[in-house]
């Protein structure tokens, strides 16, 4: 295979690589494109067959039908609230631990890191059922706060590991220098480490938002009348009209795609140490 530069074999194998890359890209992009097209098609086009494959007849009818269907608008707002509470809770609780894991060699650090990773082996499926029972006795069932608590339990290990990666990428010497120059430990952290870590932390926060935005199993078990968007979509799925499914699919998909494109620079910084 290792022919000379420019030989037919090399040329062919390079061509094959590009062809494969393009094919895989099409496999990834086509469904995203079609879902978007479906969500912005007019009322007739939704039911039409064969379907329109080009964006010739775009309309917001389908989207506005979805948003005004049942309790979707309320669910949409609730999803944002749940995701924001989850984001604040999990970052406030998890970032200090991430910082500690990155900066200090303390007894139990490895155990903590391992058990935090191990929590992912215990699926949300298992966690949600007892939480549903516990939340009823606490009187926080069917509330946005209750769902956020479950989502924080889900997101916290992720926050600890990714923020620890982010802080590990910020040189401790800079903080030490600031402390030599008279800063307190806290001030050195706030003035030096935090600004440098901020983009990575923001990426982590955005990811937490989307984890909560996406989560449907716990959300649908912990709520009944006050559902989040995915739980609402799931509960209306059976017997829902086609335009509901089209717009709902788009609504759930779009933020995830946009978010990944925004934070893709930080993906490897965040995951770097998690994967070692």
């Amino acid at each position, binding site marked *: 295979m290792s022919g000379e530069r420019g030989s037919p074999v090399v040329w062919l194998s390079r061509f094959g690589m590009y062809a494969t890359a393009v094919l895989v890209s099409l496999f990834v992009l086509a469904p995203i494109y079609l879902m978007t097209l479906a969500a912005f098609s007019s009322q007739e086009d939704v039911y039409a067959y064969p379907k329109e494959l080009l964006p010739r007849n775009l309309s917001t009818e389908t989207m506005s039908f979805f948003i005004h269907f049942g309790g979707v608008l309320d669910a949409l707002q609730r999803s944002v609230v749940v995701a924001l509470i989850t984001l604040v809770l999990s970052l406030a609780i998890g970032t200090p631990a991430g910082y500690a894991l990155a900066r200090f060699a303390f007894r139990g650090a490895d155990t903590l890191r391992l058990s935090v990773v191990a929590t992912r082996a215990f699926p949300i499926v298992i966690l949600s*059922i007892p939480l549903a029972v516990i939340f009823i006795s606490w009187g926080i069932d069917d509330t946005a706060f209750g769902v956020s608590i479950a989502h924080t339990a889900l997101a916290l290990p992720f926050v600890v590991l990714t923020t620890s990666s982010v802080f590990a990428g910020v040189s401790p010497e800079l903080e030490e220098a600031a402390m030599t120059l008279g800063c307190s430990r806290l001030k050195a952290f706030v003035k030096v480490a935090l600004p440098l870590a901020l983009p990575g932390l923001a990426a982590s926060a955005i990811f937490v938002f989307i984890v909560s935005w996406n989560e449907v199993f716990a959300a649908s078990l912990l709520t009944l009348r006050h559902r989040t968007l995915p739980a609402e979509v799931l509960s209306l799925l059976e017997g829902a009209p086609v335009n509901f499914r089209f717009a709902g699919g788009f609504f759930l998909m779009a933020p995830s795609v946009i978010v990944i494109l925004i934070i893709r620079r930080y993906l490897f910084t965040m995951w770097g140490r998690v994967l070692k």
Partner: protein
Amino acid sequence: MTTVAQEVSVERRRRQWEVLPYGLVLPTVAYLALFFAWPMEQAFKLAFRDGGAWTIEPFRTMVNDANFKDAFKFTMLLVVVIVPLQFVLALGMALLINSKLHGRGVFLAIFIMPLAISDLAAGLVWQSILTERGYLNTVLEHLGLIDQPYIWLDPTKPNQLLFAVVVAELWRSTAFVMVIFLAGLQGIPHEYGEAAEVFGAGFFQRVRRITLPMLKPSIQVALLFRIIFAFEAFAVVLAITGRAKTTLATEAWKWQAEYFDSHVAAAYSALILVLSLVSAGLVVFLLRTPKEQMAR
């Protein structure tokens, strides 16, 4: 490995700040104890305890339920079919991005797009494509391959339903495996492959003899996560197959949300946990790295 200088500075910091790290991790430990460990114990009680006595009644109900066999079989089938296919695909994608391809930044951006898409969204996306009056049939008809819409999601054809869920899951979750592989590939020095090439190793030989062994830690991590997540398959199956196919997680959800029986729901989730842990143990055991090879 850490250098001597690092070790000295770590040592210095350790002496100065003995309590601080514990204070910093305390909120996380407390939260996980309250909202993770304790609910887990409660789940265990729901499944095994009735009043003050031990019981296996929920498990008996679970096993004797008409849907149990289907759910078990379909869940296993999903894991066994999706994970290997997606590992081959992800390895190919990661190798493409890691090669000297022009525009690989663009390809990477495209490949990771589905990374955060939920399984419910993925289910709805592929439902819109595969549904009878959907996009796949439209394309096939334009190409002249069919002259009337074909029913892909036929509830009486289990293989087609399996295929639909597999495609949706490959589309959605392969990016995750690829990212892990790519991070691993970037840790393999280029010299290794180049040296092998000088000695006449072909592409597939290089992948088998160098890339795959060096990638073993990444493969292990990716396998652990993907198998565990695959056992949780739920919304994607509901969205694509309706109630024609069910999984263990779907049954747990139904027993809790529709039959209001937390005990049987907990039994289902206990089964999912056991399956996850057993396969995690198998992965760790089968892909273990002997101590003398752990120089990294």
